């Protein structure tokens, strides 16, 4: 089966899942309320799935590593710390929490700034050790996590409930007023990155080959990493942290396609991200009746797959 064909099939599966999700169990009596609500929810899900698939592919290619995801670099914990800090210092009724747009902007800016500093580690110095980036990211992540837990301990239990909600990604209470802003960010930066689709093929060969073939390596990599940061920050601020989804869909995409070309890989991983999330959310809502948030399921499946990748040992 050709790669185009596979992509077409993925697209079909995705579309049918979306229709299924929107239509099944729709209460016709309150159609004018329920339909727009479902549509904005499904849009948020699609946006998240696509952004995570896209950004993880770019990130893995740039770092030439198949088990990394941008969220492992402490971004998820930073998001949590951010929410906890705001709650701790300003309380649950502060404008930073009540005004979701302001909260969104604040979160995105902090996360992009942090990523910018972190990625400097990757590009600074002679060796450009990926392990240094990984180490710094993991250590920073742990620090953020401990700080959050500590602050959460001393929080008022009622306030803690607020922060608990943001600990797992959830599409059940997507704030539809954030959708235009986050879509604009995600779509805009994705379109910008699409210009580099052929360059990404070359970057997959590693730094030396990329330089040899005339890629202005440091500049291009920094730009691509900043796109990754914006995408991840936007969707995390929109729905919360989904650590393992990226690894899951990108590796599935690589297994599925014959081609190494990013014009296919990026599409496939974005589509797979959307399928996983829409399908997952459909199961969670209609089958499990909201017994668990979708991110718990995704992280469970993704975690298992991650272990499988490690055991198989083919992840360099």
């Amino acid at each position: 089966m050709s790669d185009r064909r596979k992509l077409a099939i993925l697209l079909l599966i995705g579309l049918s899942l979306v229709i299924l999700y929107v239509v099944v169990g729709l209460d016709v009596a309150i159609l004018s309320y329920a339909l727009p609500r479902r549509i904005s929810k499904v849009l948020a899900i699609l946006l998240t799935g696509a952004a995570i698939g896209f950004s993880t592919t770019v990130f893995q290619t740039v770092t030439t590593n198949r088990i990394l995801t941008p969220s492992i670099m402490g971004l998820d914990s930073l998001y949590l710390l951010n929410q906890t800090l705001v709650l701790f210092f300003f309380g649950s009724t502060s404008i930073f929490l009540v005004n979701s747009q302001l909260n969104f902007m604040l979160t995105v800016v902090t996360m992009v700034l942090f990523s910018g500093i972190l990625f400097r580690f990757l590009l600074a110095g002679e060796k450009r050790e990926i392990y240094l980036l990984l180490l710094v990211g993991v250590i920073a992540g742990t620090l953020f996590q401990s700080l959050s837990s500590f602050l959460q301990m001393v929080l008022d239990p009622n306030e803690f409930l607020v922060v608990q909600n943001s600990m797992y990604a959830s599409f059940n209470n997507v704030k539809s007023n954030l959708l235009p802003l986050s879509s604009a960010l995600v779509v805009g930066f994705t379109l910008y990155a699409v210009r580099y689709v052929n360059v990404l093929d070359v970057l997959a060969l590693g730094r030396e080959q990329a330089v040899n073939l005339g890629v202005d390596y440091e500049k291009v990599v920094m730009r691509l990493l900043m796109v990754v940061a914006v995408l991840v920050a936007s969707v995390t601020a929109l729905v919360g942290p989904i650590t393992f989804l990226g690894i899951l869909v990108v590796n599935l995409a690589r297994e599925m396609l014959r081609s190494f070309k990013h014009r296919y890989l990026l599409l496939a991983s974005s589509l797979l991200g959307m399928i996983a999330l829409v399908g997952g959310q459909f199961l969670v809502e209609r089958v499990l009746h909201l017994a668990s948030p979708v991110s718990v399921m995704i992280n469970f499946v993704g975690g298992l797959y991650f272990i499988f990748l490690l055991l198989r040992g083919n992840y360099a």
Partner: protein
Amino acid sequence: MIKVVDVVKRYGAVKVVDGVSLTIPKGKITSLIGPNGAGKSTLLSIISRLLARDSGSVYIDGKELAQWGSKDLSRKISILRQSNHIDLKLTIRELVSFGRFPYCQGNLSEEDWGIVDRALEYLQLTEIQDKYLHQLSGGQRQRAYLAMVIAQDTDYVFLDEPLNNLDMQHAVEIMQILRSLVRELGKTVVLVIHDINIASCYSDYIVALQDGQVVGEGCGEEIMEESLLKKIYKLDFCVGQINNQRVCVYYN
């Protein structure tokens, strides 16, 4: 012509390349020889802009490295390093097609594919062009990368230990290809090499390095000289003439 002027590279307090100046002649095979840690690979990486230098200049056809745009430079020089292990599902043909990236940014025209085909043919890879890289033997993989460099069609080709892990037959095969690159296609080849007998027989010009400094340069006969080799490698050499070529024995 490549001109290297007073290039210095430090790692911490150690000067790995210590004020190297040399001129690499055009249309010739030039070999960089010397013991481990002499700075050969570092020097090659600096000349091919993979590594930043601390001071000094490198002129390629009269223009300083920093003055070249990355795209123009990639049509002028190409570099192949020893570690070429990538975990990608790539066929030989796909790898070789990357050589055209500097010209077409990944959108290959008929003409580009023609050049890819000719590069494959030149290295006798046409029959196995659809094999994946990880299915290849060391010699085949080395040839595949060489084909990519040939498709890149640059005036200057830099190779860092291209004979690494190759047996005698494949090593000679690679050296013959390099010689034909120079003779038939008019390329300039610069390589780092450990086997000084191969260096002596195949190169037009040899540069000997020791502790980051140039300790000798010239044609094979000037370098293949017992006292100079003894000074560089700290071994007793016995240099002789076989088939009109200088070779040495240093095992005892």
